[in-house]
């Protein structure tokens, strides 16, 4: 069987890729997909812990997180469509009407 650290390293890498995507990308859709990658990285970590510690709570957690991620994705896509209609672009750098 594949040992636990492998899964955790994979999950940490996915999380880092997602975080880098959110910070570096200027396209809203890519940013949003990166956030989904981060959520799934956390899911992978949870399910790994659940499997190796032999406690079932993690499975429940993952199901619920998946549903939440879907709700967030729906709201996010709707919001991106709204802002595209409003501004005609989804480039994150263009949204700077409010500055201090």
């Amino acid at each position, binding site marked *: 069987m594949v040992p636990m650290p492998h899964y955790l390293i994979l999950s940490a890498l996915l999380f880092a890729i997602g975080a880098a995507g959110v910070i570096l990308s200027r396209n809203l859709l890519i940013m949003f997909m990166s956030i989904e990658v981060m959520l799934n990285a956390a899911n992978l970590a949870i399910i790994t812990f659940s499997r190796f510690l032999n406690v079932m709570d993690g499975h429940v957690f993952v199901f619920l997180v998946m549903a939440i991620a879907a709700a967030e994705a729906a709201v996010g896509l709707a919001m991106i469509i709204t802002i595209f209609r*409003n501004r005609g672009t989804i480039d994150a750098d263009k949204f700077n009407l409010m500055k201090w």
Partner: protein
Amino acid sequence: MTDQNWSILIPEIFLFIWALFIFGLDLGIKRKNPKILGYSAMAGLTITGILLAIFNGGILFKGMFQSDQLAIFFKVIFIGSAFMAVGSSFDIASEKIRHHRGEYYGLILFSTVGMMFLSSASELITLYIGMELTTIPLYVLAAFYKDDKLSVEAGLKYLIVGAFSSAILLYGLSLLYGLTGTTDIVTMKINLSLVFLSYGKIGPGLILAMIMVIAGIGFKLALVPFHMWAPDVYQGAPTPITAFLSVGSKAAGVVAFARIFVNGLIAFASDVMKPLDWGIIVAILAAAAMILGNITALRQRNIKRMLAYSSIAQIGYVMVGMVAASELGIASVGYYMFIYLFANMGAFTIATIFNDKTGSDGIISYSGLSKTSPIFAAYMSIFLLSLAGIPPLGGFAAKYLVFAAGIQAGYTWLVIVALLTSVVSLYYYANIIKTMYFSAEEPTIKIHPSFPANLVLLISVIGIILFGIFPGPILDWALESAKIFAF
């Protein structure tokens, strides 16, 4: 089966069904009578409050859902802030939101249900779901003026930052789960202590987990350095939603923080565990929040942005009580949030009414308000002075308690920072009062709030003055609620 006491879930279930009912009502009445939706939302919240007074105390689902004193205390704050947000929305709902009023009120109620769940969560899964149920409707609400560029931009910024922070929080929670093998916060506390006692140290995993959870909740609280979204979102979102964000959503973050850190990780707040001490991390963040919030608020020309920076500073004061991690500390946090509810909701309600009348959020346009609408100028002065912490208003007692808790816990330097920044804050609060009362410009604007907005303002003013002069009952209740943590 002593813990299958379903009745404690009744307030949440009722509010959820009521929110669905409002969605249905919106379909049914076909936009004929704009006020009925708002009134039914207020009625629903009132009934929820009454149900909460009847059905409370107990645990459900093997301790996943606890209706203890702390939860009830904060649920009252959530219901109050939702009530006031709905009350101050009547004018914008009939003018600016013609087509989606049902969604508007319904989503506020859904968010309130999320907050109520969050405050009862003594377990990580419930806590995370509660937090998401709180924020997802708020993303939509922040962007509710679909054709207004600022509002949509605010909603989008809130969405990206909110989703990003919730992913960080989730990863932190997953690490906590992995380190302790449980999602229950009390069991987590025991397991961590056992590991610590037997090995004498806990590895970097816990530090990483704590930092991630602090960052995740810090985003929700707009704690420096996770605050950069707050001014933009506060400025762009519909003003009642801004008020709801700044009170309800923050109180939700505060209670989540208390549940995880002050209950679950309390063992790691003391000096003996120096490298793992979350107390000092949060204390530094709180100091940064107070300094940055207050200094930046000085140069704001827009009242919503100014209140946003002021709320960043206020959360710094709340965190002083939190890092004290004592009974007095938690009680003072509760009391502070209670007074903050009245003061901040009141100030934002005035800003809403004013914006409806003039279409402007500039502080300068408030000049001469005392001559045309003396009552509202007086109200606004009371709210602002309470936020600044002037006796005998509620804000003074709240700040006094928080500082006392901080001194008692040995965070003297933090309290000195807090005192100095409070003095700075007086300047920008007083600046608005000066503009309203002593401006040379000729006043032109007279404001006429609708009945519900008037009610909200009246409740806020009475609350601030009454609980400022007689802090006893609320403080006793807050002390009672702090007992559940068993320090």
